[in-house]
C-alpha cells in the first residue's frame, strides 16, 4: 500500500471546499449586500454545500446502489423544486 492510497484525498478536498463555501456564505453578513443578492449567495452556497456533503462525506456514488441513490436524490430535488415554484405560482405570481 502506498502513501497515495492512505491519504484521504477526497475528504481533505471536501473539507477545504466546505470551509470556502462557509466563508463565502459568511460574507453576506459582513458585506452590505442587498436582500436579493444576499439570499442568492446563501442559496447557491447552500446547495453546493449539500452536494459536497452528499458526495464526498456521505459517499453517494461509491457503492453499487449508486443508481438508486442518485435516482432518489434527483427525484427529491424535482419534487422540492415543483413544490417551491408551484407555491410561488399560487401564492405570489398567479395570485390576483
Amino acid at each position: 500500500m502506498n502513501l497515495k492510497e492512505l491519504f484521504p484525498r477526497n475528504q481533505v478536498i471536501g473539507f477545504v471546499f466546505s470551509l470556502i463555501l462557509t466563508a463565502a456564505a459568511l460574507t453576506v453578513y459582513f458585506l452590505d449586500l442587498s436582500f436579493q443578492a444576499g439570499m442568492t449567495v446563501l442559496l447557491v452556497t447552500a446547495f453546493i454545500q449539500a452536494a459536497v456533503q452528499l458526495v464526498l462525506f456521505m459517499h453517494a456514488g461509491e457503492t453499487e446502489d449508486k443508481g438508486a441513490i442518485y435516482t432518489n436524490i434527483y427525484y427529491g430535488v424535482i419534487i422540492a423544486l415543483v413544490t417551491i415554484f408551484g407555491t410561488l405560482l399560487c401564492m405570489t405570481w398567479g395570485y390576483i
Partner: protein
Amino acid sequence: MEFFERFAVPHPSPAIYASMVAIGLTVIAILAGLTYFKKWGYLWREWLTTVDHKRIGIMYLISALLMLFRGGADAIMMRAQLAVPENQLLDAQHYNEIFTTHGVVMIIFMAMPFIMGLMNFVVPLQIGARDVAFPRLNALSFWLFFMGAMLFNISFVVGGSPDAGWTSYFPLAGTEFSESVGSNYFMIAIQIAGLGTLMTGINFITTILKMRAPGMTLMKMPMFTWSALITNAIIVFAFPVLTVLLAMGTMDRLFATNFFTTDNGGMDMLWANLFWVWGHPEVYILVLPAFGVYSEVISTFARRNLYGYKSMVASMVIISLLSFLVWAHHFFTMGQGALANSIFSITTMAIAVPTGVKIFNWLLTLWKGKIVITTPMLYSILFIPLFTIGGVTGVMLGMSAADYQYHNTMFLVAHFHMVIIPGVVFAMLAGLTYWWPKMFGFMLNEKIGKSAAWTIAISTLVAFMPMFFSGLDGQARRMYTYSESTGFGIWNMISFIGAAGLAIGFALIVYNVYYSVRYSPRNISADPWDARTLEWATHSPVPEYNFANVPQIDSIETFWDSKKKGHIMFKGDYEKIHMPNNSGMPFIMSCIFFAWGFSFVFAMWIPLIITTIGILVCMALRSFEKDHGHYISVEEIEETETKLRGAK
C-alpha cells in the same frame, strides 16, 4: 384547582359524560381481564415487544378496525343530525368537532394503518424475506402511530376535540378563532403518527430494494409489492411537508409565531397550500396499495396472469410523479388567477389517464379469465363501477372554472367518498378477507362475507349519490343544519338510510369474524384460494421465519409455475436462520412520546422537557446497545415444519 380546569371539556354534553364513564369502565375491564386471566406476560412477550412484521401487521389491522368503528360512530351521528331539517340532536360546536375527528380518524388512523397492516404482513412474504430491513424501527413506527391515535382519541373527553375540519385551515385553526386545546391535539397527535409513517416509508423502500429472494428482479415482483414500493416512495417525499407544516402550525398556536396569521407578515392561505402539497399525494398513498390489492385479487380469481404488467408499473410511476403536481385543485377558488388554475386543471386531468390505464388492465384481465366470485373478488368487481363514478366526478371538479360551482358543497363530499370507499375501504376489506387464512389459518365465511359486500356496496350508493344532487342544489358541506324550505331534507334522509346500511354492513363483518372463529374449519391448505404469489408458498399461519428455505425465483409467477409446471422453488437443506430479537424499547419510547404529546397539547413545559430527555435517552441507549439477534437451529426448523405440515 385552576390547573385541573384546563383538562375539562369546554363544551360538555350528557353524551360526553357518558363516553367518559364508558371509556373508564372499558379500561378497568381490560386491565382486570388481563390480570384475572394472567395474560400480562403473554401480551408483553408476544405483542408489545414483538418485532415480527406479521404480528405488527396484525396489530395495525386491529387498530384500523377499531378506528373504523370510532370514525363510523362519528359518521352516523352526523347523518342522523342532518337527516331532517332543523334537527336539534347536535349543536353547531359538536357537529364541528365530529366532522373534524371523523375526517382525521378515517384518513390518518383508519385508512393509513389498514394499508400499513397489509403491507407489513404481505410484502416480506411476497418477496421471500424473513422480515423487514429494520424490524425494530418497524415496531417503533407502529407504536408511534398507535400512541398518536390514542392521543387524538382522548381529545373529546380531555380538553375538547379539534373543530376546524380535518384540513384545519388557518386562520380558523389559529388561537384567535380556536381557543381550546383541540387544534393542539390535531397538530401533535398527527405529528407523532406521521413520524411513524415516515419511518415505515424508509423501512419498506429499503426492504423491497434490498431483501428480495434470489432471482426476483424488480420486474418480477408481485403487483402489490410494486404498489407498496411506489406508495412508500410517495410517503418519503410527501410526509416531510406535513411534518414541517404541523411544526409551523404548532409554533403559531403555542409560541405565537406568525406563519399563518393575517397580519405581521403571516400568509394565512399558505397553510392550505402546504396542506395540499402533502394532502394530494396522500390520497394516492391511500389508493395505490388498494390498486395493488385489486391486482392480486383480480388475477387470482380470474385464474390468469395480470394483463399489462409493464403498463401497470409504468402507470404507478407516472401517478407517483403527477400526484405531486396537482395540489392546487383543492383551492381553485382561493384567489389565484386563470393561469395558475389552468395549469393545475390540466395536470389534474392528466392524472386520470394512468388511472384509466389501470382500470382497463383489470377489465382486460377479467375479459379472458375464468372468473370465480369469492368475497375478495366481489369487492374488486363492485369497486370498478363505483370508483368510476368517483373518478368521473373528480374530473368534473378538476375543471377549475366549473369548480367554482362545486367547491365546498356536498358534491365534493360525494366525490371523495365515492373514490375513497370503493378505492380504499373495499380494497382493504378484500385484502383482509383474501389474506385472512394466511394470517390465522382459517377462512372467513363466504356467505356472510358476500352479503356484507353487497350491503356495503349498495349502502355506499344510497348514502352518497344523493349528495351529488343536494350539492348541485347548493347544500354546503360542514353545515350543521338547514331549513325546510331549502328542500335538502329528502336527500339527507336517503343519505341517512344509506349510512345506517353501511353500519349494518360493517356489523355483518364483525359477525363474520365471530362466526368464522367459532365454526370455520381449521384443516385448510396453505393455499386455499389457488393463488399465484409467493406468500401462499409457506404454511398458514406463517412460522416466525416465514420460509424454511429461501425461495429461488425465475419468473413473475414462480409459485404458480411450481404448482403447474413442477418448477422447484425450495432447494437444498435447512440451514440455521438468523432472526432479530424482541425489544421493549419501541413500546416504552412511544409511551414516553404519548406523555410528550400530552404535555405539548396542554403547554406543560416541565413535563415536556422531561419527556424530551426521556426520548433522547432511549435513542442514546439504542445507539450503544449490542444486539446481534438470535439463531433458529436446524432441529427447531425441522420440528416446526413437521408440525405445520402435519396440521394440514
